[in-house]
């Protein structure tokens, strides 16, 4: 006797592929990334950051490009407890979150933060791929401290990579994005992922440095939230 469970639905009537397609990492006992042997080649010849860049771009970087990429990641990496991703990680820690939970919370918050950063620079990134002439005022340095930081980035990168956009008095975020773009990350989505990747260990470390389960020691009124009664 047939039951409803035996009845074919739309998902049974459709022909589906029968295999997953791997396009970056080859399956099997000797993994490759874009064709390059991880254990026999990349691990010996490339830094981990360079292999990350290879994964994102499809081609192994030159030593100079790899060095510039690492410098950009260094500049992008510091995230203070004042910023929501590290703050959220700390709150998760005070709730005694397990490492997987801590990672999930932090990665999600970082992904949201970098999504907004990249979204705010979308037209700037498009201009980098074309012909960058004028830079919008919001993408320029707005203080001496910021200008000094961008100058440190310029001087660090200069021996390895020529980034013409850095001559345009960029803001710190715009300057980091320009270097990442010059390293071969040509799309906003790849830059977004690289930024989140750079910041994740630091946001997590900030949380791990605090004692777990200490929610009564957490400053619950930062920032202050005030209830306004407005029943409808």
């Amino acid at each position, binding site marked *: 006797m047939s039951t409803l469970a035996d009845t074919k639905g739309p998902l049974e009537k459709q022909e589906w592929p029968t295999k997953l*397609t791997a396009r970056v990492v080859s399956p099997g006992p000797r993994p490759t990334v874009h064709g390059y042997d991880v254990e026999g080649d990349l691990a010996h010849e490339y830094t981990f950051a360079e292999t990350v860049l290879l994964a994102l771009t499809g081609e192994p970087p030159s030593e100079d490009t790899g060095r510039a990429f690492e410098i950009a990641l260094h500049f992008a990496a510091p995230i203070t407890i004042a910023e929501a991703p590290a703050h959220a990680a700390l709150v998760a820690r005070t709730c005694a979150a397990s490492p997987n939970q801590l990672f999930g919370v932090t990665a999600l918050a970082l992904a949201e933060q970098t999504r907004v950063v990249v979204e705010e620079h979308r037209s700037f990134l498009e201009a980098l791929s074309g012909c960058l002439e004028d830079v919008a005022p919001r993408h320029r340095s707005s203080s001496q401290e910021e200008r000094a930081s961008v100058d440190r980035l310029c001087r660090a990168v200069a021996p390895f990579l020529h980034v013409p956009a850095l001559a345009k008095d960029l803001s710190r975020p715009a300057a980091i994005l320009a270097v990442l773009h010059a390293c071969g990350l040509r799309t906003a989505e790849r830059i977004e992922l690289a930024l989140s990747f750079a910041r994740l260990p630091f946001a997590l470390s900030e949380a791990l440095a605090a004692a777990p389960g200490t929610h009564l020691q957490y400053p619950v009124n930062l920032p202050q939230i005030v209830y306004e009664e*407005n029943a409808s």
Partner: protein
Amino acid sequence: VISTRVAKHLFGENLYFGHRAIGDLLGEESITGLVAMGVSGRRATREQRRVLDDLAVICNSADPRIWPLKLTRLVGSYGGTVAAFCAGQLAVEGERIGYWITGYAAQGLAELRAAVGDRIDDAEAVEAEVRAFVARRGRVTGFGAPLRPSDERMDALRRYVRGTSLERGVHWRLQEALAALVEGKKGIPRNIGLGLAAVMLDLGYTSTEISPLAHFMTENVYVANACEAAAQRSPEMQRVPDEHVEYAGAPRRESPRSLARRHESAHPLQFMDDGLPCA
């Protein structure tokens, strides 16, 4: 200072949008009503709650093979229920898949409503505005029922609405007029996103409120899959056997640095027993 209308924790009571949870809401509210209040800040009437509950039942499409639910199962396969529940929903906040699209469909109907104005009973004027709307928009959210001739949820919603006051709702009538054109001319069936949007707009919710309302009142589909997947901890879900994976990436090759190093040292490439080059 950040202001909130959501809640305040008191001694002996919890306020929720100005209502005492224990003193006012207990025995009166439902989970659907609490969710609707969470989205809009307004308390739904008993009739609105009844309709929202019925909509949630109509929308109860929880087959684990549906993409966001498959995602839920994959993450849940290691035993984490909440991780699975959260992850499954992350990919649907957009205009492509899941009930979040309802808000986009609502934006379209609200735009059409504004264009029609007080001419809702003028069939010719409505049709002209619908044509202009479709021409202006190109792709209209709320149409398309993949893998089947029509969306069974939308069919059920039309039967549910028939003969009720909902059938006279302005946005419901506009979606009927819109469907008459798109289904009739292009042969693309409307989906539940359009119907939900129309009913929710007629219930008084705004386009901005409708995406989260439609999403959160159908969360049971993620709950069910997250709970079952976490309990199963399926090894097949944790790792698909290698024979079911095909590699379509770049062929095995030697990196430029490895090549250069070999040339410098004049060492020929050596191969292991399996034919792969040694480092």
